[in-house]
């Protein structure tokens, strides 16, 4: 089988794959390089792969921006609270629905889940619903609407359905009801799937832009993604004082933008090894059994 080890097709595919790696990784490398570089090199467009005149001035400027810290704090609150609520909602429902025979109305509820996988009311009715519920401009408009994802629920449900019945029966004999069995027996042995789904929700909440954008009015409640858009896309990076200060202290707008992006994706990069491992599993469970 391996007689033509260096066939042309192999070389071509290796080149193509290396090209893909380069195209995906380069923007990140470039971003890091620019954000750590001395200003003069950035303005001269002189950076390609590594920082020139290494320094942290840009990051100091980013953290001086009065919008960044509150937004970071807001995002963390939204992510933590949102993930906890979502896991509470999803785990309970997934467990109950995995007991198809015993759970009352299981058929109806499963049907409702299928419907929301394919249909939704659309942007405007969703927006009005948030208003009718009195959640406009509150934290709940950010953390609650996403608390139930049909896909995540189905992944978890198929996982729980494969949970060994003997363990649950032993719990019943010990006098545990369904809540006790879930809390003391099922959850401690299912931490992997719960962590996976939790990460799904957490990344979604961290990256959420549009929900907070239309549901929040107060700037003090804005999460990081909205501030990121203001700085990177709308060019509201430079405070007026920065322009005035001039001279050696001026910092290229691009550096600020790249540094802000890096600051915003840092947590994602830190958890990326886990994300990759667990997410791939999650997608597999979903595709095979869902």
């Amino acid at each position: 089988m391996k007689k033509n080890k260096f066939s042309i097709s192999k070389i071509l595919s290796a080149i193509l794959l290396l090209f893909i790696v380069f195209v995906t990784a380069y923007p990140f490398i470039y971003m890091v390089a620019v954000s750590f570089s001395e200003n003069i090199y950035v303005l001269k467009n002189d950076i390609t792969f590594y920082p020139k005149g290494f320094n942290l001035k840009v990051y100091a400027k980013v953290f001086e921006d009065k919008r960044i810290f509150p937004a970071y704090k807001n995002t963390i609150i939204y992510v933590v609270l949102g993930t906890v609520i979502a896991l509470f909602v999803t785990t309970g429902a997934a467990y109950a629905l995995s007991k198809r025979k015993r759970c009352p109305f299981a058929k109806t509820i499963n049907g409702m889940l299928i419907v929301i996988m394919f249909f939704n009311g659309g942007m405007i009715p969703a927006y009005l619903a948030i208003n009718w519920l009195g959640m406009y401009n509150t934290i709940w408009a950010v953390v609650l609407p996403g608390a139930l994802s049909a896909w995540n629920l189905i992944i978890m449900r198929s996982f729980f359905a494969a949970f060994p019945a003997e363990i649950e029966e032993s719990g019943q004999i010990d006098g545990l009801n369904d809540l006790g069995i879930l809390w003391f027996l099922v959850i401690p042995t299912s931490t992997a799937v719960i962590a996976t789904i939790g990460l799904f929700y957490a990344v979604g909440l961290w990256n959420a832009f549009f929900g907070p954008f239309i549901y929040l009015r107060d700037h003090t409640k804005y999460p990081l993604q909205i501030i990121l858009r203001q700085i990177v896309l709308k060019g509201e990076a430079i405070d007026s004082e920065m322009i005035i200060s001039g001279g050696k202290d001026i910092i290229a707008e691009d550096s600020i933008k790249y540094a802000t992006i890096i600051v915003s994706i840092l947590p994602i990069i830190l958890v990326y090894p886990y994300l990759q491992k667990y997410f791939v599993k999650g997608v597999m469970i979903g595709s095979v059994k869902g």
Partner: protein
Amino acid sequence: MEVISKKNTTLNINRALPSNQNRFFNKLKDGKYLLLLVLPAVICMLLFYYLPMWGVLISFKQYSPFKGFVDSPWVGLKHFRVFFENPFFYKYFRNTILLSAYSILWGFPAPIVFALILNDVQNIKFKKLVQTVSYMPHFYSTVVVVGLFTMFLSPTSGPINKLIMSLGFNRVSFLADARYFRTIYISSEIWQSLGWGTIIYLAALTNIDPQLYEAAIIDGASKFKRLVYITLPCLAPTIITMLLLRLGQVMNVGFERAYLLQKPSTYETSDIIQTYIYRTGIEGNNFSFASAVGLFNSAINVFFLVTCNKLSQYLTETSLW
């Protein structure tokens, strides 16, 4: 103790009610904790999915936030008529369909091809490297991806224009030019999802029985023949399911991406139905009209989903439901 009391109540109900109702109450009693567990999810569904679905009815009303839902008068199909008679209707419709069609045309086969190539790599370390790097952008937010593309394509400081100029051409302001919008939109989408999209196909590829390949090799089938007669037919159900799911979202073009990438100077190609809904509905407070436009959008989606599913049932016996 619990067991005893449970038995007693069961007996009582047994005597009091006919058997059908009896079974129902028994099930309710037995599953009461399960019901409790599923309740938050049901409430979430009702509030955030079914309430908006019912709210779609404002498309047929002249909704005013001050009068409320009930007191706003019915106007029938007025908003739909206004939308169809809008001189720009054709533009929104065309932009949506074209953006979506190009996105499927380029974006759908890309991960399949990538997965096939990746699956052929024998060096595990190299394969892992490619996967680790290419999955990464999936976890960036749309704002970050659009930000990166905007900065890389910037006419003054972007590396792409630097390259173009070093090759002796004039700089191009990609983002302000309507001709480039679709290309940029689709490139950014593929850039973000190419690696991640392979996972499902790689999983399907590992499920193919290696004996099939061994037999084919003994029979002298070339690599290309193995691809056409073994790999692709085995992948077909996965590909069709994914395509159906994608077609059911034809009109749901990635709104966030389009909204963040568009500029008034590119509206000619970048203004899609969804961005129009946002502008008239949320910025313009024209709720009923925007909701009607949204309903029209969803109706096309449903039509596509059902038609393609029927077609696939008929042709390949693969169905979503």
